[in-house]
């Protein structure tokens, strides 16, 4: 395995008496696509929110590129090169597609806020460069015609693409995709699979992929981690993991063999 970009060690998160994630560990290697799967309520979403810094773990450590980021809030993690998409689409709905991308580039801008307020040329030129890059990226995602449209005017599939383009705008080294296939039609799922692979191959982004759609996981992932009731129950190559009896049991319940035979 290549050097790890993200390491989660012994992560535990409790909500009152409920243990949502229990002593879970996972590693994403540089240039890898790692899948995180599990039945509903298994703690996947909690784990994603812990990785991105929206939630703080009760126990455990997160290392990002070897640095301890456990106590950093989400905007600091983003600045270190971590981007994410959301299971339920999140976009700045009153802004244009281009402005949505531009905001993801703010943290990389060097000119001061004061320079921007006074309209200094350094700030103006920097913004022009960022807008040009946003347009390039939108063209890459085949969204160039929508740059000036409000995001609310786009279809769900297009909004999903804007979300991923926004993530790429921040030039991340790790992209956390939270159920990107949710709500997409089957042809769009095919496009998504190709696109995520190209993100890794052309931009060299490492990806942590949380997904329900098994086809996406089997086609894309180098490595899969399975959670059930907050506990890691299996990990390995996707084809091996989906045949693991423990995993099958977690998904469809105990006694499946007996019922299948009967």
């Amino acid at each position, binding site marked *: 395995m290549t050097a790890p970009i993200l390491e989660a060690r012994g992560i535990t998160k409790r909500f009152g008496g409920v243990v949502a994630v229990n002593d879970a560990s996972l590693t994403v290697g540089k240039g890898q696509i790692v899948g995180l799967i599990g039945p509903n309520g298994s703690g996947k979403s909690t784990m994603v929110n812990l990785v*991105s810094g*929206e939630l703080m773990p009760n126990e455990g450590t997160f290392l990002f590129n070897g640095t301890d980021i456990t106590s950093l*809030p*989400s*905007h600091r993690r*983003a*600045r270190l090169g971590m*981007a*994410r998409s*959301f299971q339920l689409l*999140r*976009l*700045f*709905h*009153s*802004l244009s597609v281009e*402005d949505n991308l*531009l*905001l*993801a580039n*703010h*943290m990389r*801008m060097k000119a001061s*806020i004061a320079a*921007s*307020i*006074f*309209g200094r040329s350094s*700030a103006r030129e920097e*913004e022009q460069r960022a807008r040009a890059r946003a347009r390039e990226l939108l063209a890459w995602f085949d969204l160039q015609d929508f740059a000036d449209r*409000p995001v609310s005017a786009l279809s769900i599939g297009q909004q999903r693409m804007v979300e991923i383009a*926004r993530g790429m705008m*921040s030039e991340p080294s790790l992209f956390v995709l939270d159920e990107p296939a949710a709500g997409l039609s089957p042809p769009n799922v095919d496009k998504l699979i190709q696109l995520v692979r190209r993100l890794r191959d052309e931009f060299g982004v490492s990806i942590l992929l949380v997904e329900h759609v098994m086809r996406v996981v089997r086609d894309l992932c180098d490595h899969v981690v399975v959670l059930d009731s907050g506990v890691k129950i299996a990990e390995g190559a996707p084809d091996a993991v989906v045949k693991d009896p423990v995993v099958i049991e977690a998904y469809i319940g105990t006694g499946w063999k007996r019922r299948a035979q009967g």
Partner: protein
Amino acid sequence: MRVYLIALLAFAGLAVAPFGIGGYETNVLMMVLFFVILAVGLDLVTGYCGQFSFATGAFYGIGAYTAAIMTRDFNTTIWVHLPAGAIVAGLFGLLLGIPALRLKGHFLAIVTIAFQTIVYLVISQWTSFTGGQVGLPMPNAGPVTVFGVTLFEFGSLRSYYWLTLAMTALTLLISWRLVNSRLGREWVAIRDDETLASAVGLDTTRGKLTAFVAYAALAGVAGVLTAHSLRGVTPDDYTIWISATVVAMMVVGGRGTFIGPILGAVFLAILPELLGKFAEYKMLIYGVLLVLVVTLMPEGVVGRLRARAAR
């Protein structure tokens, strides 16, 4: 460019207005300008950044009392009071911004109401410092001198009007630059989706605090101008009714549209003058207007017009 041209024409018209109208009308215009500053300031924090505040009257009063107390204790002039009022109100804005880091929506609104109440109680009850219910008198601003040469005497209604007009132009220009800067875009991002704003690397703490400080500082400037042009301060000019009036102006005009709150302030500030003896019912009329606008077009008049133009 067209925006700047229209603004320039409007200000040129307002600048020559006192030659064509009487003292009463000039006073009304000046009061309209105070409300324009207050409404545009509130729009920064509520319309753009999405943080409710019912404390406009408190910051307005903090600016006014800063000017009055400095005049009494240090014998300073309006040129010192304008920046001082902005800074003192801005610092209190920072203070009120801190709960906004944890609280949202109604809960934040309640905290701002509490802050407004505390400020009112302090200025009306701390008699030895603020003059209590009677307030404090203020002398004329005096002559304006440059290197010992007197340019003009400050004291006439017109001179206060022109100063207010100039400060209105300045505050509008600053606000316009703010909302069109990177910072203004971050305010809108925080209003739209705070979780996402943080996930794309924006410092939402900085965003909210700067919005509160800008809002409070503008209200502070309006307060200094008001204190000087009214030749004094009394607590009843800085109550929660002012806060509610400014909220109505912003909402009726259109939150986050910049021009909307300006038009809202002009319309709602002049309205009572046109009502004659019914002017005492103005809060009732504001209330009915607010309910109608919030239910029928929550985006406000300008917001509705823009949405229609975009279709």
